């Protein structure tokens, strides 16, 4: 009985929480007049949609592809660079590593919107603006890396130290011990952190807006911002665009969520 009471509570809470998402989808199918109605309608009365039109007119295929490439690149490099660092900062614990963690946090102190001017200037000097998507990847990593290190470090801390010792005594080099024993055990945490990094960079806006100077490399977030202009605010269009933008991630997430959540909760090794 108690289980079903809890379930009902959880259902209500979840429904309330997901309401904004519902509202986004419902608005997609409303007409402008209906959207401005008060009291608002909770179900579109004469459903219409401009999914196809928005997708094509806004060149979303191209934008989404660019977003995907950038997110994959960012996630890949973050994993490559960050995993080892997270492990190192979990494994070695002394005042130097404390200082390093401190540095990692402080180095991402400022929002991208304030970092972008010096980064733009520097990238121009380095010639990185010639490869705009790569430039965005490089810039985004400064945000995702600290975040990833901090998250991932926590899962490395969960791996008992004695396992590494055992591997070393068994004849593994520190590198073998890392790849053969520690990495497989932290893989859940790594996976989850990587997914979060991916999503974070898929939704990144500021660096893409400023570092990509050619529209054919532009990302979906920037495409969305073009809707909100001085002389035009097309709410239905914005919601349609947003829905097209987030639905693939939502679906991918739904498919993966079992694994993610299971990985998270079973993460603690005994």
């Amino acid at each position, binding site marked *: 009985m108690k*289980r*079903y009471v*809890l379930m009902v509570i*959880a*259902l209500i809470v*979840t429904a309330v*929480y*997901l309401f*904004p*998402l519902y509202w*986004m989808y419902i608005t997609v199918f409303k007409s402008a007049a209906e*959207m*401005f*109605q008060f009291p608002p309608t909770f179900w579109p009365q004469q459903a219409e949609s401009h999914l196809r039109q928005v997708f094509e007119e806004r060149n979303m295929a191209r934008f989404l592809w660019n977003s995907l490439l950038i997110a994959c690149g960012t996630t890949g490099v973050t994993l490559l*660079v*960050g995993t*080892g*660092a997270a*492990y*190192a*900062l979990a494994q070695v*614990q002394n005042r*130097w590593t*404390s200082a390093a963690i*401190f*540095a*990692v*946090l*402080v*180095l*991402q*102190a*400022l*929002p991208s*919107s*304030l*970092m972008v001017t*010096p*980064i733009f200037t520097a990238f121009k000097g380095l010639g990185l603006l010639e490869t705009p998507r790569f430039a965005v990847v490089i810039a985004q990593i*400064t945000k995702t*890396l600290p975040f990833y*290190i*901090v998250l991932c470090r*926590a899962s490395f*801390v969960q791996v*008992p130290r004695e396992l590494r010792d055992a591997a070393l005594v068994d004849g593994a080099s*520190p590198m073998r011990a*890392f790849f053969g024993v520690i990495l497989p055990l932290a893989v859940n945490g790594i996976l*989850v952190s990587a997914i979060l990094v991916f*999503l974070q960079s898929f*939704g990144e806006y500021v660096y893409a807006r400023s570092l990509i100077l050619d529209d054919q490399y532009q990302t979906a*977030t920037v495409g969305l911002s073009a809707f909100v202009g001085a002389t035009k605010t097309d709410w239905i269009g914005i*919601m349609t665009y*947003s829905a097209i933008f987030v639905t693939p*991630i939502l679906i991918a*997430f739904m498919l993966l*969520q079992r694994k993610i959540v299971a990985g*998270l909760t079973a*993460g*603690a090794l005994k």
Partner: protein
Amino acid sequence: MNKLLSRFPRENGFEITLAGFALLYLLLFAGLPLLYNIVLSFQQVDLMEPATLLRPFAGLANYRDVFSRPEAGQVLSNTLQFVGLSLLFQVVIGFLLAMLFLQDFPLATFMRGLFLAGWIMPGLVVGVIWKLLFAGDYGVLNHVLTQMGILHSKIFWLSDPQWSLYAVIIANVWLGVPFNMLLLSVGLAAIPADLYEAAELDGANAWQRFWGITLPMMKSTLGAVVSLGAIMTMQQFDLLAALTQGGPANSSQVAQYWSWQLSLQTFEVSAGSAVATLMMVLVLIVAVIYVRSTRNERMV
């Protein structure tokens, strides 16, 4: 760098290489821009001049300028409220949800998964959705609250200076709750069940078990969650840009957005950099808290 490396115990060579690479990357691509910002805050800057570090030194004039502005006090108070309230509600709601979904009931895992969906939304998208929800005349939030009898007249969330900051906070809490729940779930799952059993045998009720076991065992997780949350909240920008842009009349203005407006809208780069530098001090404090919370986290 070499001298620094030599001070590490040599047996950790492999680990040092790993960490060193990441740190070097961050120093290069995040450290230098940061430093640039700090330098600017002590200089007289004309943005149009070519990029150079040699500009007239201004001492603390930029800081005095920032503090002498009429909106300075409000921005400070708003920033503290924005960070403090966002964190408070994110952590409390996240904690409650994490505990709820840790219980055994049908569909628990599935629903928790759904919850995380909120977090994968880009800040910009969340911003525009909430702007629609908050709309005073036709927004659904006003309708629902009125129907429930909580409100008697519409609140103009984004235009009423008494509400605008809280509107932004509400949206930010919405955005941050899944992340908090996620990390706190992991922490909660790591608490051995026998501790609760032991406490129950000792006659502790649920409330006492929470204060006696859950909270102390979650100390380091909470430390991490709070400090990461604080840093993420101080970085929140897309949401502000989409919702109120600091308005009306600076009523929802917070440091990060103000700094951006000064630097890149009115092109008072020196003042903008000074605000950014002051923000870094705040982050510095949070980072200290985080690093302290990571100590003694290994119980083995």
